[in-house]
């Protein structure tokens, strides 16, 4: 590859543009530099979120000994807000989407590079506002990440500031979606027809539409909260003619589709990785592509399943339950096609594949337990318990989180031009996988036995399972640490990565590692 690299200009790390130092990053409009910055940011917030999560777990095995009741409520709320709004919603699109979308479709950058830079600044501004809310008068939000009214209107914590931060983050998300959809429509290389697009691009396309159409609903909901707190406007206050259930409708109208913002691009990553390591073309390309669009469109109409015990009418509950079951089908189709891709393959069991296949297992548990709580009668029991906590951690962490780890190990050589040692990556994966299941599977049982979520304290009969779960959280943390240290070491001491270490067929593997600033010397023609 050495002789090949000489044909190219410098890598994008050398191409600084008009500025030096930190500004060469902050002021850059290069999609790859923006992607790397986003990656660093989301992993930082993920790490802080993990630490807060560990603290929650620790407090639960000795209620009152480690955290006070009030601190506990703040810690689980901030854990949720960081993980959802600063890590997993921006997540795959801003980091890996930014870096790879233009390359995979044979473009030099996204359609609006400056708008892309603006999203990064908005993200930083939103993050700064959220951070400010933690340390200024009033103290961190204690409402949970859902900001349910009327509690969020009355609570004395710094909710207005935190909500404003999330509002700004929403704009970052909308503009990223807009940019990606336009890029995919306008900047595909000659011959890159819709059905030649890599599946990761298909999922970013579907996700982009959800970001554009759903996020404004969140924005207006958050504005209503701010108006309620600052000016006493009673949108959600019954004594002023408002309705608390309206808040739930508005909030979940965004926040359910947001689940697909988190999970669709994660599925895209899996659809890239499995064929490469099975040495096969993806089985059922069109089915996998269409199922992404199916999930994105039907996903708008299932928000009510978050409200089966809210006091909403019984008819609405029945309809939402029915549609919820239908949205499971396209996810199933993806899983069947991934497994079928392995059939008659020549499977190379490298680290990225470990993460990708454990995604399938964990996400299946997350998805199937979604059917259990999507059922009307069982939901009456399981709603608001640890069963829900377990379910969404299997979907969010076992799904989207494991996909991000898959992507990190799959694209690391391309992004940083370095190879990492495989063995520590696999050891880290194994520890993480064991810890993950101890931590979260115990929560299914806790929830089934009636343990409510967001409880600082609990009756003694739940102690043993809480203890197992907390021990799991320590094992999980060790696994994450091994994975992270391995990659960080490789960043400095790794061997030079070839341009195509895995034998990938998509365009990013045809250019140098790390890519040159312009991506392609000449725009490739796809045959």
């Amino acid at each position, binding site marked *: 590859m050495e002789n090949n690299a000489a044909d190219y200009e410098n890598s994008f790390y050398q191409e600084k543009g008009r500025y030096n130092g930190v500004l060469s990053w902050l002021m850059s409009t290069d999609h790859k530099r923006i992607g790397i910055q986003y990656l660093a940011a989301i992993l930082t917030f993920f790490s802080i979120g993990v630490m807060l999560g560990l603290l929650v777990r620790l407090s639960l095995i000795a209620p009152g000994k480690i955290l006070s009741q009030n601190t506990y409520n703040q810690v689980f709320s901030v854990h949720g807000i960081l993980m959802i709004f600063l890590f997993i919603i921006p997540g795959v699109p801003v980091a890996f989407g930014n870096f790879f979308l233009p390359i995979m479709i044979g473009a030099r950058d996204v359609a609006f590079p400056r708008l892309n830079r603006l999203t990064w600044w908005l993200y930083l501004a939103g993050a700064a506002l959220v951070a400010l809310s933690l340390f200024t008068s009033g103290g961190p939000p204690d409402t949970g990440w859902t900001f349910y009214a009327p509690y969020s209107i009355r609570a004395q914590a710094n909710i207005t500031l935190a909500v404003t931060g999330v509002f700004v983050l929403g704009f970052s998300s909308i503009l990223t979606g807009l940019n990606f959809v336009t890029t995919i429509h306008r900047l595909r290389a000659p011959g890159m027809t819709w059905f030649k697009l890599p599946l990761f691009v298909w999922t970013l396309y579907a996700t982009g539409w959800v970001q554009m159409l759903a996020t404004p609903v969140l924005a207006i909901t958050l504005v209503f909260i701010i108006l309620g707190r600052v000016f006493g406007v009673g949108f959600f206050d*019954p004594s002023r003619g408002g309705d608390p259930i309206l808040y739930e409708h508005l909030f979940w109208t965004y926040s359910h589709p947001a689940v697909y913002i988190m999970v669709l691009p994660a599925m895209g990553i899996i659809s890239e990785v499995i064929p490469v390591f099975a040495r096969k073309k993806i089985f059922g390309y069109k089915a996998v592509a269409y199922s992404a669009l199916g999930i994105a469109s039907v996903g708008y109409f299932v928000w009510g399943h978050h409200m089966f015990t809210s006091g909403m009418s019984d008819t609405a509950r029945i309809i939402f339950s029915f549609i919820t079951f*239908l949205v499971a089908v396209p996810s199933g189709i993806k899983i069947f096609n991934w497994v079928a891709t392995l059939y008659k393959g020549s499977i190379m069991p490298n680290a990225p594949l470990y993460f990708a296949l454990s995604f399938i297992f964990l996400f299946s548990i997350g998805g199937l337990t979604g059917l259990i709580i999507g059922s009307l009668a069982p939901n009456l029991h399981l709603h608001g318990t640890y069963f829900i906590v377990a379910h969404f951690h299997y979907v969010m962490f076992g799904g989207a989180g494991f996909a991000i780890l898959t992507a990190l190990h799959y694209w690391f050589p391309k992004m940083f031009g370095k190879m990492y040692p495989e063995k520590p990556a696999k050891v880290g994966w194994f520890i993480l996988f064991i810890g993950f299941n101890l931590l979260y599977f115990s929560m299914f049982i806790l929830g089934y036995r009636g343990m409510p979520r967001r409880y600082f304290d609990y009756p003694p009969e739940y102690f043993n399972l809480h203890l197992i779960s907390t021990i799991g959280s320590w094992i999980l943390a060790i696994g994450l640490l091994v994975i992270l240290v391995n990659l960080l070491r490789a960043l400095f001491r790794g061997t030079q990565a070839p341009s195509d270490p895995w034998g990938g067929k998509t365009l990013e593997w045809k250019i140098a590692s790390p890519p040159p600033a312009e991506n392609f010397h000449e725009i490739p023609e796809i045959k």
Partner: protein
Amino acid sequence: MVLGPSNIAGKIETSFLIVVSACVVLLVAVTVTMLVFLYRYNRKRHPVPGETRENIPLEIIWTVIPTILVIFMFYFGWVDFDYIRNPPKDAMNVDVISRQWSWTFRYKNGKQSDTLRVPVGQPVKLTLTSEDVLHCLFIPAYRVKEDCVPGLKTHLWFTANEAGTYNIFCTEYCGLEHSHMISKLITMSAAEFSAWYQSKPEAKAGQKGLDLLQSKGCLGCHTTDGTPKVGPTFKGLYERKVTVSTQGKERTIVADEEYLKRAVLDPGSDVVKGFPNIMPKMPVSEDELKEIVNYIETLK
């Protein structure tokens, strides 16, 4: 059909078990297939990838079969839902009033309690509401819950199958003491229930005041044994000097009858130092107020 401690519990458990079984079968099928392929087509055993073609019939099969399957699962979640949600006409109504952070159960004859007592074999309908933020009444053993929404009346119902004592939790996050908003459901024979239901509170000194504190949920935040909770304890409070904040200014006053009455009717006027200003205004009559103050006096 599973039997449970209540009519509803058995029905929900049955539909839970059906849906869970279907999910376990699907999970095992996917995982085992994946592991078999992983072993069989490992590069060592299968160095050259084989040819597979797009297979439209297969795609259709694994779209249609799961669709039928999930519609069946939906059906088993829904089949008893009408029954679970619609109480019979002869159900005994109990009003449930929730607030940060206590429950009041009010019966038809005006009797109030902070625990829920019901007779075995009699359908009971709970009519739920909230005085402040969202709460949710959850009886894990009965497999039922429903939110308590301010400004709205929601409901759930059940018939107890056997006598016993069960937890009642709040499962909608409602602030500081959310995890201590716990009460009990006590089920008893019809005779025992009717004895309790007809009984008048004994005329012991202050007993009426204690009953009032209990039924209005005051004891969710205030104790009578000297330990401070969310609010100050009642023990030894009467005629003690307390530091309060009045409109932001600190001053020391004596907790006399007049102060105690003011603290109930307008809790925000003088807030005891070291405690948050979060107590809701309680609707109490002049007589009730007198009983409460009399009772606090006995705790000197």
